Every structure is written in C-alpha cells, then in structure tokens.
C-alpha cells in the first residue's frame, strides 16, 4: 500500500478498499477547503486566535467570524462578499463549528466564536461515515442524555437497531467504552471532543430540513479525481485505432453548406409557421374557434393556399400530404404514368405493414408491377430489376427498397417538375383561398372576443391592427373596452 507524499492531506493512493471495493477519491472541493484550513493555522500568518472562557475552564483556539473573513480577504485578495461566502461554505462543510449553536448554518460576523474541526472529523468522501459509527454515536448520546434523543435521532436509532441488529452488542460495548475512555481526559478536552463529534454528525447525518452538503446530483460522479489510469497495452491501442477509423469514415459537411440550407429552409417555411407568422383565421387555443383545424384537416376538399404552396417546396412535402398525393395521382393519370405512384405506395405499405402479410403482399406487388407483361409494369433499370427479383425469393420487409428508391427518384426528377408547371397545379393555386381573419365583434356582452391572434413572436410596437391582441391573447380580454 504505497503512500506517496501528496500536496493535499488525507488523500491516500490505495483508498479504503476494504469497504466496498472500488477505490474512492477525495472530492476536489473538499481538498481545496482542507488546504485553506491548514493555511489558516500558520502561527505567524494564520487567523488570530482567542480563548473561550467558560466558568472555570479556559479553552484556547477560538476564532470569530469577522477574523476569518478578514483573513480570507487579505490572503486571497477577494471582496468581502466572496470571503463571507467562503466562510459560510467552511461552516456548512463542517470545517468550522460555532460554539454556542452548532446547528446554525451561516457565519455570524459578531462576537460568536468558532473553532476548527479536528482532521479526523473533516468531511471526506474518502472515508464516508459508516452506519456502525453513527449507531455508536447515537448510543453514546443516549447514555449521556438519559434517553432524551431528538426526534429524528430517535428515528434513526430505531432504524439502525433494525438494520444492523446483528452487531448491536458491539454498538453497546463500544459506546460504553468510548465514554469511559473519554473520562480520562480533562474537562475542557472532553467538551471540545464532544462538540467536534456532534458537528461531524450534523454534517454527515443532517437533521430534517437541512440540505446535505455531501449530496451529489445525478450524474455528478465524474467530479471525482480520476486516479484510474488505463494501462497502455495492445487492447487500449486497438480501441483507439478503431475509434479513429470510425471518425474518419463519418461524412462531414462544411458548415457553410449546412448553414445555407438551414437559412433557405427557415426563410421558405417562415410564412407557414403558425408561431412565426400567426395563423389564420385564428388560433383555436386562444379563441376557441376551430376553423383552422377544420380547414387544414388531412383530407379536406378545398386545401388552403398555404398548403398548396407548400407542395412546391419539395417532393417529399407533396407526397406527405394526402390531398397533394391525390392531386398528383390525378395528374399522373393524365400522363399515363400512374403506376409509378401506385408502386411506390404499395412499397410503403410493405415497409410499414404487418409481418404476417409480407409474403402475400410481395407476391401481389410482383404480379401487378414487376412480372414481365404485368398489367401495370413499372420501368426499372435492368440491374435493379435483377437484384429485386433475386431478393424476391426470400421476401422480407425491405426487399423492394432499391426499386422503390429508383421509382421515387424517377418521379421526383421527371413528373414532379412537370406537375408544378402544369395547369392543374396552377389552377389549384388560384382556387385555393386564404381564410379571412375572424372579425372582431364589438357587442359589449360578448364574453369571448373573437379576434385573430397575431404572432406572439412579434414585438408589441409593430402590431398595427390589434394593439391589444399583440400583447398576447389572454391579455386582450382586459383591454377589450
């Protein structure tokens, strides 16, 4: 068990491996606090010490809060606020304790005296407080106070009695012996040691309502100093090589290209976004008028203008919209190439359908679209056709994927631009209506004013029509007058 000399005290290389197995480390903030406390002890440059006067005994080595703060300001050249905060941290972590009221969490700047905690009882993640030790402490307190323990301590006592019942003999024996050993010291020392132990347990088992300083949030374990170093053997290097190869193979896009595409998307979709541009006729969530939803239902007879415009953005948008797809199908029928879209739809069905239907579906697709001389034969290039026919012997969900992609690209490059230029599409655009804004009704007894909801993203000053509405829908009710 080598103990190399370390800058921070109480950091052992091997760690108490007998309790639990995994080597623990002292948390960095605790090591830092220890260094601060040790530097405070310097006889020349440390904190000024006073004495505590009890009735007959005089106990040395007490400090006031203001001394500590002053020393911190001088040593670290920080502001008073920061020094006070550091002092409070020291008290809360148990490195300093108040002599009168050990439970008070802050650092008082008046004449309250504090004392330093002994290194054995310093807060440590390297030596976590054990249940057995707590049980012994509670038993000792029980003896001293003749059974009058505080509520939460009584609870803990009972819990521990159940949990570590098998070592309860040891608990009682140790408690008695430790008290008898303490009696061999003089009174002042006894008092100090009792206070020290009490402070330690106030930090490690805080009473209800006091937040525990040792609690780390979820996923905070990486704060511990990583002392486990991987030995640089062949496995380690093999892993590294694998990681680097994978990293090389990743597709990298230049950020200028990415950002351009992003800008284009944003500017194109901005008028269509209900949050950025408001929605007509009105936001149903605000005005309880669901015309918007009714008019934008998936299978509506007369699509809105915005919707029809959106079909022009990309082929994917067109196919995603059922009304758009239906119109595209009509167009293809006029061009006598409707089988492409039907084939594509059949492939989609295969992809997303049930496992049990796959063989029958594949079969019907083959018969209808792929067999030579089929009724609706699709025009796939020979290589893809060969591969597909090979795969059809063992049909699975994705067996028609190549063919589907080919037909998709065909439609996208060929039929889709023609559709956009066609009279049909232009006619649809012209027919499609823009829904009017719901008119504001001025009847005084209307409980819910129906007005269009302008975009909440717009600043209030730019709202010309409805200055009240621009402040947000709900607020409009008040300004209705």
């Amino acid at each position, binding site marked *: 068990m080598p103990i190399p000399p370390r800058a921070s005290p109480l950091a052992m290389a091997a760690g108490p491996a007998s309790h639990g197995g995994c080597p623990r480390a002292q948390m960095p903030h605790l090591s830092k606090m220890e260094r601060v406390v040790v530097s405070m002890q310097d006889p020349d440059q440390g904190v000024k010490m006073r004495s505590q006067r009890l009735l007959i005994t005089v106990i040395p080595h007490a400090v006031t809060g203001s001394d500590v703060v002053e020393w911190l300001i001088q040593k670290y050249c920080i502001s008073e606020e920061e020094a006070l905060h550091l002092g409070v941290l020291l008290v809360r972590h148990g490195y300093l304790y108040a002599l009168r009221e050990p439970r008070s969490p802050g650092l008082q700047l008046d004449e309250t005296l504090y004392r330093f905690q*002994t290194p*054995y009882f310093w807060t440590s993640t390297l030596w976590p407080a054990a249940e057995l030790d707590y049980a012994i402490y509670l038993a000792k307190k029980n003896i001293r106070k003749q059974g009058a323990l505080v509520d939460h301590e009584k609870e803990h006592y009972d819990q521990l009695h159940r949990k570590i019942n098998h*070592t309860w003999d040891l608990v009682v024996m140790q408690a008695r012996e430790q008290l008898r050993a303490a009696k061999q010291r003089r009174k002042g020392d006894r008092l100090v040691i009792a206070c020290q132990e009490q402070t330690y347990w106030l930090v490690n088992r805080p009473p209800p309502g006091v937040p525990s300083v040792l609690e780390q949030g979820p996923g905070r374990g990486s704060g511990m100093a990583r002392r486990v170093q991987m030995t640089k053997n062949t496995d380690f290097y093999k892993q590294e090589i694998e990681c680097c190869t994978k990293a090389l193979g990743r597709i990298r896009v230049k950020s200028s290209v990415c950002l351009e595409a992003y800008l284009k998307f944003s500017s194109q979709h901005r008028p269509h976004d209900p949050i950025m541009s408001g929605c007509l006729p009105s936001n149903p969530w605000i005005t309880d008028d669901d015309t918007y939803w009714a008019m934008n239902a998936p299978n509506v007879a007369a699509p809105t203008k915005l919707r029809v415009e959106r079909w022009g953005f990309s082929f994917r948008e067109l196919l995603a919209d059922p009304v758009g797809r239906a119109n595209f199908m009509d167009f293809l029928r006029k061009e006598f190439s409707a089988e492409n879209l039907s084939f594509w739809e059949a492939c989609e069905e295969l992809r997303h359908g049930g496992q049990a239907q796959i063989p029958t579906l594949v079969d019907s697709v083959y018969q209808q679209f792929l067999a030579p001389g089929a009724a609706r034969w699709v025009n796939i290039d020979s290589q893809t056709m060969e591969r597909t026919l090979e795969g059809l012997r063992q049909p699975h969900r994705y067996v028609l994927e190549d063919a589907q992609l080919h037909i998709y690209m065909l439609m996208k490059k060929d039929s889709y631009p023609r559709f956009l230029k066609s009279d049909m599409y232009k006619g649809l655009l012209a027919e499609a209506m823009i829904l009017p804004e719901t008119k504001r009704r001025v009847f005084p007894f209307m409980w819910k004013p129906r007005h269009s909801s302008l975009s909440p993203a717009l600043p209030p000053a730019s709202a010309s029509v409805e200055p009240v509405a621009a402040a947000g829908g709900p607020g409009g009710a008040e300004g209705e007058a």
Partner: protein
Amino acid sequence: MAREECKALLDALNKATACYHHLVLTIGGSADSQNLREELQKTRQKAQELAVATGAPLTTALRDKGMGAEERAEFERLWVAFSGCLDLLEADMRRALALGTAFPLHAPRRPLVRTGVAGGAAGVAARALSVRNLRHEAERNFDADDLRELEREILQVGKMIHDLEMKVNVPRWTVQARQAAGAELLFSAGASSAGFVSVEERTGPCDPSKALAATVFSAVLLAAVALAVCVAKLS
C-alpha cells in the same frame, strides 16, 4: 470455561479499540505530539495482541462441529462482535496512517490544526494497556519510523481478518444480538455526570462548580464580616 474466557478477552479488545479510537481523534490537532504517537503505537500493539489472543479460541470453538445449537449461537454472537471490533480497529489504523502522513510532527511548514484540545491523553492509553502510569521513552524521529511500522501492521491486521473469515463462516444475518434497543441506558454507571455538560446546557441548581464558587465566596464574606466586627469592637 471457554465462553467466559472469550468474553473477557473480547471486552479487553473492545476497551483497547475504544481507547485507540479516542486517541486517533486527536491526530493532527493541537494535542498532537510525540507522546501521542507513542501512546498510539502502544495501544494498537496491545489491541493487536488481544485480537490474536481472542481469535484463536473463538476459531477453535466455532470449528468444533460437535457443539450444541445454543452454545454455537452464543459463540456466533461473540464472533460477530469480534470481527466488527477488528474492522473498527483496522479502519482507525488506516485513518491514523493517513492523518499521520498528512500532519508530520517535525515538518517546518505544516502546522497542526488548532482545535482547542490541549491536554495529554496518557490516561486513555494507560486505560487501554491496563497499567497505572505510562512512560514515554521515544526518540526524536519516532513518528517517521512509526508510520512505516503502522503500514506493516495494517497489512498484518488485514491478513488476519482475511484468514479468520476464511476459517470460519458465520452468516451475519442469522445472528441476533442479545442487547435490545436502549440497553446501554441500563448500566450507564454515572456516565451522565456533570462532566459532559455541553456548553449551551445549564444543569440547573446543582452545578458543582457554581456551588463551590458560592460556598467559597460566602465563607470569605463571613470571615470578612467577622474580622470587621472584631476590629470594630477592639477599636
């Protein structure tokens, strides 16, 4: 009988462990000194001797197949207390090593933490060793050598624990302690004496220091009054 013997040895080990714990508490504090390190060494060596002495009969007793269930349960209880005690001792020894390394006595720039504990702990060590007085006879660089020896002893104790566990298999969950909750209150012989009054408590009218001061004062006052009366009468 073997059981009484084991119990007595276990009590002695318990006492030594408690005293050692009490001594380790003050390492690195203002009471840390050469004497303390010497006391620590003597106490832990005594504790180790006792551990070896207790372990042997307990092991033989528990390995004895032909023992009654009642007696076996008793020995298992003793065993659990014994191994718990050994664990406490080992943990305290490790802490002592860490603290002793962190707060060497003769380093120029590493002052001890001023904790307010000032007195010596010779009484505690004497209690552990069951002697009347303790003599301190260490040389100057005692603590550096002592740390090396402490390391070795920790390894020894660890090995002893491991061997004992290998030899005897006592499942902890089957052992039921004899003491009930609150058993420590029954035999607390005067432990609640005024010695443990913490700073914020007032023990009421029977505070002995206050009573002593009051009696002394009143005696002095009476004497002064008597003298004054005498002087007045004489003059």
